[in-house]
């Protein structure tokens, strides 16, 4: 596809003059990654990292003169707006900011157009995190591998990290826990309610709340939900012995070193417990880092440290991907699709990602983590994050993930609330997930029930 543009002579002369002036001023010349393009609209959720995204978008507008409108919504509201837009004959949103819980639905439904189909010359920066290759989709095989087309660009490489009180650890002469046994021992040591809880977990039932909190435990104990999604084997393994150990541990931690209202604690309350100095640990998406050192929001400025989520001895950290990807709607005009590509081309650069980091966001370009900024005290979370990211697990590779998440949210919450035993919860959830997968004609099966 070729595009022809008529440029007025006056603009050419102006441009030459500006280029000549810029070349005389050292450091004034910056490569322009984006052409002048149509205004675009991005639908996005109001997450802890949103402010950094907004400021990055402002930087894009200032640098290129292009216009970007942001439609900001709560988590569930964003999904609903995206569904309404992509299912209409003409879409309202050019770029969809999709969560790990629903991007597969957008890929498989044919709602997102491959970036390389819009611009065959688009080159992905080699330093961009591909996050379990979830930015690719092979429609023929329904898999997310590099063999597929480039469907999206990472926007926020969110994974949970262990936030712990560095000051308390220093006083007690402890080092960051690497195993679940160490975490439990340390949490119990600091547990002194109601002033201080050993750990505060996100155990409430929500759109993707307790399930997301549980993934690092489940995978860190060597468990999982499905046997092997990459090969299309969706046999349910949730109620394995490892799954049971993980859930027993999670519930025990809540009871013996956690907050009494774990079953009703959502993300905001967990962050609140940390910033008010009422807990020694939380496991939370890294996006909340900027709140920890914000004197207007935090009573524990400069006291929090970060580490990869623990695992059992012999296994590596296994945080669940809770990342956000930017995909371009199929049902918007071509000029807006091209404008969206220009934005993503600019967004992936190291320079843009440095802006993101400085604005409190999490860079998606690995080159930023090798910059001097990563050694600054304020960005002390960068190195542990870079260490953990390669081990992140993509939990769902199929479009019906929201149904499975609903089952997990209910079953896990009931176990945390003590409404049912961990064994009943795991067996019950496994049965329901197997039924869902069978209903959608996936190759599935289940383990013998736990006793």
């Amino acid at each position, binding site marked *: 596809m070729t595009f022809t543009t008529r440029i007025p002579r006056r603009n050419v002369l102006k441009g030459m003059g500006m280029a000549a002036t810029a070349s005389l001023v050292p450091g004034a010349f910056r490569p322009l990654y984006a052409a002048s393009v149509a205004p675009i609209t991005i639908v996005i959720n109001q997450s802890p990292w949103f402010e950094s995204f907004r400021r990055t978008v402002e930087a894009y507008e200032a640098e290129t003169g292009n216009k970007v409108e942001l439609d900001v919504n709560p988590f*569930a509201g964003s*999904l*609903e707006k995206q*569904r309404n837009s*992509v*299912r209409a004959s003409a879409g309202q949103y050019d770029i969809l900011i999709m969560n790990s819980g629903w991007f597969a*639905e957008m890929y*498989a*439904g*044919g*709602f997102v157009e491959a970036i390389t189909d819009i611009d065959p010359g688009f080159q992905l920066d080699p330093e961009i995190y591909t996050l379990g290759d979830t930015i690719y989709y092979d429609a023929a095989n329904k898999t997310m591998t590099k063999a597929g087309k480039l469907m999206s660009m990472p926007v926020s490489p969110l994974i949970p990290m262990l936030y712990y009180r560095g000051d308390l650890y220093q006083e007690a002469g402890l080092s960051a826990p690497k195993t679940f046994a160490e975490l439990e021992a340390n949490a119990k040591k600091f547990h002194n309610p*109601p002033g201080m809880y050993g750990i505060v977990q996100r155990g*409430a*039932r*929500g*759109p993707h709340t307790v399930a997301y909190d549980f993934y690092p435990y489940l995978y860190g104990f060597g468990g999982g939900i499905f046997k092997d999604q990459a090969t299309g084997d969706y046999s349910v393994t949730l109620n394995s012995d490892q799954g049971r150990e993980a859930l027993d541990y999670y519930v025990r931690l809540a009871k013996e070193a956690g*907050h*009494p*209202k*774990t*079953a*009703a*604690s959502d993300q905001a309350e967990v962050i609140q417990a940390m910033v008010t100095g*009422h807990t020694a640990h939380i496991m939370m998406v890294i996006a909340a880092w900027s709140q920890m050192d914000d004197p207007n929001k935090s009573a524990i400025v400069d006291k929090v440290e970060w580490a990869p989520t623990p695992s059992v001895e012999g296994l590596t950290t296994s945080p669940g991907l809770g990342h956000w990807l930017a995909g371009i709607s*199929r*049902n918007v005009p071509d000029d807006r699709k091209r404008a969206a590509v220009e934005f993503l081309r600019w967004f992936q650069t190291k320079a843009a990602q440095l802006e993101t980091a400085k604005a409190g966001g999490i860079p998606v370009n690995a080159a930023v983590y090798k910059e001097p900024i990563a050694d600054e005290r304020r960005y002390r979370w960068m190195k542990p994050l870079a260490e953990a990211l390669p081990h992140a697990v993509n939990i769902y590779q199929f479009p019906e993930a*929201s*149904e499975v998440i*609903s089952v997990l949210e*209910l079953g896990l*919450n*009931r176990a*945390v*609330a*003590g*409404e*049912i035993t961990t064994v009943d919860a795991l067996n019950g959830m496994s049965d329901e997930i197997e039924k869902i997968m069978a209903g959608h004609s996936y190759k599935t099966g289940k383990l013998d029930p736990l006793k």
Partner: protein
Amino acid sequence: MAAAQAQTLSSPRRPAKVSEDRGQRLWRWLTFGPALAMMLALSVLPIANLFLTSFQNITWADGQQVRTWVGLTHYQALFSDSLFGAGISNTLIFAFGAVAGQMVLGFAMALLCTKIVRGRVLYRAIFILPILIPGIVIGAIWKLMLNFDFGLVNKALGLIGILPHDWLGSPETALLSVIAVDIWHWTPFCFLLFLAGLESLPQDVFEAARMDGAGAWQELVYVTLPLMIPTIIVTFAFRLVLAFKVFDEVYLLTSGGPGTSTEVISFTLYQRFFTEDKAGYGSAMSVAVIFLVSLLLVLALSARRRTGAAS
């Protein structure tokens, strides 16, 4: 002969009457038709579409909707959906519990208000305040009030030596807490209807009762309550239907948790239809809920008819 004459006299007028009737009928249809068409378009058609969708599965491929006929599958699945079962039973507990509380409190407040002479307007304004507050604000107010760590309820209980309790996070008290919030929110509605009913009661009956020596309690039991029964039934029916549709309070305070403790049917519907994007199954659930609410309404109205007939 007189009859024959009358027939002769009236026969020329007959066509005029027929054409007048036709004209009137046409006029009636012309004026009534748009309203009927509007009603059909806005209420009957969406429900018919919902009913049709309840027999289908909706999926998406290449950006296009694919509808597959599945017959009664979704309706059969309702019986094995534990969330649906929990939703129905919690909704019934919620609806009857909350409405009973609202009726008793609303009636008591209305009775008190009729006895107050000074500051009556002020009391009424204070009593109806909660009903004017938007649901989202009520969610925020009570989420803060019932907060485990810094909620006013726990702080107040702490003053008398009671340990803090997790009102919304404990399976034992979560539904009770939501019912309490709903009572706080909707009692003014009952209060207003009861007040209007009490103020329209004929005073001569009360005077006669007093002359017969009836005390305040006897007056309430033997005069006020029987006269108020139609108002009580209408208020009950209104509130029951509204309570059956509760969503915002549950969504904001507990999201149906912990576990299924506060799972109400509207929330289950939201989960299945919107979050899980199961439009076909969600439609079947919606049809079932519409049927249940209609059934409740019919029962309440027939009760009113029976009491009306009896009185």
